[in-house]
């Protein structure tokens, strides 16, 4: 059992991180903290993609001569795109938070909801 857990440790880390991020996105009242949660959530998925690319005994695909096997480079490339998406989402979210702060004078969600009533 322990071996099973240890052998797949990066997947466990990815799930733990994802749940931490997910929790922060839902439960936190502070808008910035939600965005931090969102970043953890997305980074966890990146970790998952990088993990599935690993081949046992594989090296980087640039060492043609020495390598017997090399890791699958495609998930790395995919995740580069997803990182760009994540950065853009964060940028849009932060821009929104600045505008929200200017309009409401606070970034606590419960206070904003009260002011909207």
């Amino acid at each position: 059992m322990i071996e099973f857990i240890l052998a797949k440790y990066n997947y466990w880390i990815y799930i733990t991180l994802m749940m931490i991020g997910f929790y922060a996105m839902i439960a936190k009242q502070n808008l910035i903290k939600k965005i931090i949660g969102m970043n953890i959530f997305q980074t966890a998925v990146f970790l998952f993609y990088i993990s599935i690319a690993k081949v046992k005994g594989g090296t980087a695909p640039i060492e043609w001569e020495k390598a017997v096997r090399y890791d699958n480079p495609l998930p790395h490339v995919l995740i580069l795109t997803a990182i760009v998406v994540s950065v853009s989402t964060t940028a849009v979210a932060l821009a929104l938070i600045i505008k929200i702060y200017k309009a409401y004078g606070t970034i606590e969600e419960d206070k904003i909801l009260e002011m909207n009533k």
Partner: protein
Amino acid sequence: MSISQHFPVLVIILPLISAVLIPILSRAKKIYGWYISSAATFISFMISLSLLRTVHVKGKISYWMGNWEPPWGIEYVVDYLNGYVLVVISFIIFLITLYSNKSVDKEIPEDKVSSFYTIYMLFVTGLLGMIVTGDIFNLYVFIEISSLAGYALIAAGRKRDALIASYNYLILGTIAATFILLGIGYLYMMTGTLNMADLRERLPALYDTTVIRTAFAFFSVGLSLKIALFPLHIWLPNAYTHAPSVIGALQAATATKVGVYVMIRILFTVFKPEFILEVIPVAKLFVMLSAVAIIMGSLLALGQKDIRRMLAYSSIGQIGYIVLGIALANRLSIMGSLIHVLNHALMKGGLFLVVGAVIYKTGITNIDDYKGLGKKMPFSMAAFTICALSMVGVPLTAGFVSKWYLALGALQAGKWVMVPVILISSLLTAIYFWRVIDAIYFQGHEVSGKIDDAPVGMLVPTFALATCCILFGIVASVPVNITNFAAKMLIGG
């Protein structure tokens, strides 16, 4: 090498290029932003029509991006299903763009208009890209392009509530997109491919594995969140209510419809119908959820005071209809769903455009304040009435055709319980629209001062949509034939 060979990619490239051109050219004159957007969306619509014709004459189109052979390269596929959706969506987008000029001038600060159109065209790029792509990771990228542009556009609303509505949509939209990304990762992990057609070949052997089922669960939740299926709808009413009127119309008429298209793609093309019907009977769950969505959407719409919020809740009910047809998974019900994608886009687009015209002229959003508008704005209100009748599903309007096919599909699937659900919801729809129509025509005119009808530039697109609502109710054979081909392709028979 003729240019028509590149149509599948040009349909997205044009809006993308225009998004780059707008900030440069509209420095000279502000109105160029609108000219360019209208021209680009018009050409996209024409290309879509030509693509659908090619599909009809020659069969499925497969376009290899950069001439890399699939499944290694990215493939763009146009068949009956997405050819049809592409025509519908690009047509609506073109009409809304035509309409947008005056409304945007009024609601967006002058120095922001060119950035508004830039983001608008990026939004269009994302939507059209989601439709034509045949590569599942490319699909994710387009989902994010359209969503990110969508958040920014909603935040452009005049009141500060728009900001918080956009923020909540961003959080939920990101959860949805990240779930879809995870689903794609799980599929890739098991099959080693990202091409949809290739996935379809390789997946059946793996249907019993937990990984594939987990992937499917992530797709289901992510997509349901994107299309605002009932319990996951909380982002939608605020987003539609506080967005600028043009964006409210665009989101309501196109964004969720494209989400529904993606759902059909994943459920029937990437996975096979057997998977959702037999391997894990998730179709049953979707039938129940959609029934709840149909009833709850209509019930919640009853209690609203703001007309845009009423239309937004009504959209949630209509999404229920479309998902119902998908989940029943027979030829007639899928035809019903696909026809309803067209009809709902026409009707809801038309209704939101009228609401936008009223906001442009008077600033009124409250249903009670609509009193007497029938005399002040006769043409707009006539269009509103036609679209409302079609929403109810009165015979000879488009709404009747799709409800008819959905009911037939429900009977064929043996789910006769769904027929009264459709009827009750139609009744509720009639009640909440009656409140508005009653205020418009049958109550004294309390709107004081001189108000004339909306400018011609706004009336023409609105009437085009209203006319289509009647046209496709009488000449229903056009959408019925095309969706028949699409449904046959999806599930055979």
